[in-house]
């Protein structure tokens, strides 16, 4: 490296490449070394051998660098906490939903209610809840001008494979209504369930199961 000179052919005819004194472009030599290491010219030509040795040396250093990094596992506990502190400070626009009877002025944010309902349906073995949208039916006017009461739920779930879906849906609906009533005091008018995936049944049956 001490007597390194700028390559004479750099950036002219070969763009970013450079020609070795033997006439081969450096990029091709490196490429050939990776793809056709038995190329006789590469072994015979001193310029190519030099170029390949440089690449080999770099790759050794890269391997050592990767190993060093693998050894020093980064602790992300503090970072994770910092991120979540900031996330919880962020205001997310959300919709309030009514709780209790029409005369009461009690509301819950959709995201909060959805979290309670998801947790409840996940007590059914093998069920995983995804999207859970809630809609206040009082806001919708029906065709004859009458108003429905309560909240409509639209829930996506991953269901365990090999279990009767109607039976499962019944259990999910039951748990959801129970949690809505007991934990939230929310009147549910309708529950739409969409099974978006079937997943292999977990080996352990530690979760809720049928009661």
């Amino acid at each position: 490296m001490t007597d390194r000179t700028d390559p004479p052919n750099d950036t002219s005819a070969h763009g970013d490449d450079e020609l070795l004194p033997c006439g081969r472009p450096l990029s091709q030599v490196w490429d050939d070394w990776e793809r056709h290491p038995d190329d006789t010219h590469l072994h015979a030509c001193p310029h190519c051998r030099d170029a390949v040795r440089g690449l080999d040396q770099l790759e050794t250093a890269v391997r050592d660098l990767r190993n060093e990094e693998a050894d020093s596992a980064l602790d992300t506990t503090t970072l994770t906490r910092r991120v979540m502190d900031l996330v919880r400070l962020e205001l997310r626009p959300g919709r309030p939903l009514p709780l209790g009877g029409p005369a009461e002025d009690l509301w819950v944010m959709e995201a909060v209610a959805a979290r309670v309902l998801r947790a409840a349906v996940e007590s059914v073995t093998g069920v995983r809840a995804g999207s859970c949208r809630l809609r206040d039916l009082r806001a919708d006017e029906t065709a004859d001008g009458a108003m429905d009461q309560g909240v409509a739920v639209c829930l996506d779930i991953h269901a365990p494979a090999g279990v009767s879906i109607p039976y499962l849906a019944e259990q999910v609906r039951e748990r959801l209504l129970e949690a809505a009533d007991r934990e939230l005091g929310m009147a549910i008018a309708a529950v739409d369930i969409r099974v978006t995936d079937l997943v292999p049944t977990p080996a352990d049956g530690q979760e809720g199961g049928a009661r």
Partner: protein
Amino acid sequence: MAGARRQTASPDTVPPDSRGDTDDALLAVRAAEGDEDAFAVLVQRHAPALLGLAVRLLGSQAEGEDAVQDAFLSAWRRLPEFRGQASFGTWTYRIVTNRCLNVLRARRPAVPLEAAADVPAAEYSTSPARITEARDAVRELREALDLLSVEQRACWVLRELDGQSYEFIADAVGISQDAVRARVFRARRCLTQALGAWR
């Protein structure tokens, strides 16, 4: 409002049985609908890999942590638009890469690409005996990474340290695959020269 009954579980106290086996796609959907606890699981799950990436790209743990923090906040805000075209991991990997590119660009506003390859030989590389020491070589490699242009460094790190495909890098960095190949080549040339064994 009944929002008060929400449990502000810190990320490390999320019950493992309830979400530990829930896949990223479901958690991302929940997080998009405002479930912070679901997002906490995603952050916990992906922070180590993303921090590793950011530190490799930026060469500094503190800056890496800031970049990952910014990236996660940005992800949280953009989650409602995230439609699951890519996995959550890939999506955040791209966000972190972009964030790091911006940090690198702000750090060194004007290093012409060609100048990067023509940086004079550093004095530390003159002793061939030291090059045989792996630790020295790694240190030299780390220092040499600073000689690269922003795009060269990003492409080289994603390719050589993270093992990403040219297609993936092109997408993450926002340039063509040929441009990625050219930058990886230039980076290698610059690094081999800086490591000093050659010429």
